[in-house]
């Protein structure tokens, strides 16, 4: 019994997140029974990746912060002020906390015609495609599951998202939700192939799809190696998040509110954050494929955390770029979006594959 525990702890100790700065403190803490064990468990790289970063905790933190950043940024660009009244000293940062409290205490209405079990399940289930891909994205050297097919798996998971949204639109069983759902499906057709093909171009370029290997290979970041792929991937991600220039399923101003019109309360809150989750994951993927993942000038004392910080910073940058689009472009019509998806972006992504092939052959 104790043998197995001992073996497990040794296993975990062999693969700890190394932080030279904190080593003295950590060493003391490890000595304390139970707390030490717990610490070892948390700092075990795979678990750290899943639970802390880039996994659950980071996601949660970002979800709290991202809408605020979005509102504030867009307001600035548009000469407004943005959230202000809640904690005015800090520019209303906790606005979303207030919002989520409201969502939490609002009544969840399940209308009579809804397909009840599915109606309740889908918002919760949609966290699966949000959390799973995070297991395969490395923050520097920290990764939950190492796999030679990491990049493909993440893409596959991301393209699962619309399925859940279609699901909840269907479960709402209301014509307004249906309209939004169908539009969601259309947009999905528009970006999916371009997204996959441009990522494919990068995989061809690197010759591997192991995330750790990919980030290790980018002495020169991918965006310089293949800018065409980067552009195609960026536009496709913007469409994939179905946010403002491509906010076609929701289209508040014209439609009733997309696939989730019938949702209220905390279930609506869950759905509300889906698009931010997508932004996070796609930005992570973009960072991995084009911006060299966690690579950057290494800060010795922070050890593994240095790569993590670089990764988060780059991801944040990509996220802000994706979010700021909202302030720059008005919404495209459905047909325009499809045309953009199939015409320029798809062309760009195929060209990107050609560019990759050429580079591979030449270098």
């Amino acid at each position, binding site marked *: 019994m104790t043998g197995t525990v001992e073996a497990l702890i040794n296993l975990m100790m062999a693969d700890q997140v190394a932080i030279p700065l904190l080593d003295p403190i950590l060493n003391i803490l490890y000595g304390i029974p139970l707390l030490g064990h717990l610490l070892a468990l948390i700092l075990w790289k795979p678990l750290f990746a899943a639970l802390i970063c880039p996994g659950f905790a980071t996601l949660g933190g970002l979800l709290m912060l991202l809408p605020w950043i979005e509102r504030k*940024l867009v307001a*600035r*660009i548009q*000469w*407004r*002020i943005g959230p202000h009244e809640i904690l005015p000293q800090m520019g209303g940062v906790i606005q979303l906390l207030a919002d989520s409290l409201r969502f939490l205490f609002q009544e969840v209405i399940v209308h009579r015609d809804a397909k009840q079990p599915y109606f309740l399940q889908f918002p919760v289930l949609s966290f699966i495609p949000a959390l799973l891909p995070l297991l395969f994205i490395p923050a520097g050297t920290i990764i939950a599951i190492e796999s030679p097919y990491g990049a493909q798996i993440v893409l596959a998971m991301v393209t699962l998202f619309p399925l859940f949204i279609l699901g909840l639109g269907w479960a709402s069983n209301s014509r307004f939700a249906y309209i939004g759902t169908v539009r969601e499906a259309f947009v999905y057709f528009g970006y999916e192939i371009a997204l996959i093909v441009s990522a494919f171009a990068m995989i061809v370029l690197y010759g591997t799809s192991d995330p750790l290997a990919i980030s290790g290979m980018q002495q020169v970041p991918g965006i310089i190696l293949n800018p065409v792929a980067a552009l195609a991937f960026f536009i496709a991600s913007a469409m994939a998040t179905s946010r403002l220039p491509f906010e076609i399923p929701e289209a508040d101003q014209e439609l009733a509110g997309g696939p989730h019109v019938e949702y209220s309360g905390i279930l609506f809150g869950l759905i509300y954050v889906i698009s931010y989750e997508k932004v996070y994951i796609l930005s992570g993927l973009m960072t991995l494929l084009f911006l060299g993942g966690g690579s950057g000038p290494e800060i010795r004392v922070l050890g593994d955390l240095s790569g993590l910080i670089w990764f988060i910073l780059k991801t944040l940058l990509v996220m802000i770029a994706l979010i*700021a689009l909202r302030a*720059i*472009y008005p919404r495209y019509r459905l047909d325009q979006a499809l045309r953009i998806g199939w015409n320029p972006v798809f062309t760009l992504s195929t060209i990107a594959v050609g560019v990759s092939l050429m580079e591979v052959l030449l270098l």
Partner: protein
Amino acid sequence: MRKVVAPDYTVFEHVKRHVEAVKTAIREAIIPESVTCSYPKERRKMPASFRGYLIFDPDRCISCFGCAFICPANAIRMKEAEDGRYYPTIDYGKCIFCHFCLDSCPEGALKPTKIHDVAYRDLDRMLTLTEEMIEPPEIIREDKRYVEYVIDGRDLHLRRVDGEDELLVDLPPPSKVERIASCIDPESCTGCRICEEVCEHGVIRSSVEEDGVRMVIDSERCTGCGLCVKECSMRVLRLVRR
């Protein structure tokens, strides 16, 4: 029919435009302009002709009903006062602040203010009685500065100036086409002399003579209030340009 066609840009022009848009966004994100006025801490400076709440001067009112008559929202009702005359009351729940009443008042008894933010406890209280209209409505002011919007070239800018904006304005009554009452169809006049009775300034006079009634309008003194025109049962009186 003219069809609107999308401009035919080349790829290069498209790219240029996108870059321009992104550049503008980045510029604004870094050094943003702002056009938001943080009312109530500051207050927008309104022009003197702003159409806000009204004040009323009963000494000038001639009870001509002109305001009540013209009010497109039916917000003005005339109420009989203790002196037997009729004065306007305004239901601000209905009022659309068009200031037609003010423009139509022949005697300048209604005056504008720049006050636009009055709170009421319930709908009934929005019916403002004559007595309450003599003084400007009471409001709580938190503003320490006022804001002006200035347009220079293409852009709109916000200018903040310290100090309180004076909300009571002293405008001369609106100028209007001068009109006087006159009779358009003397033969149809019944000679009832109601016009003489309603005229506030004693402009219409009648004298009973041997074979009938002689009616005279003193055009010099007629203010064109239209009271007689409204009361004339045969509608033979009309306001004409002086």
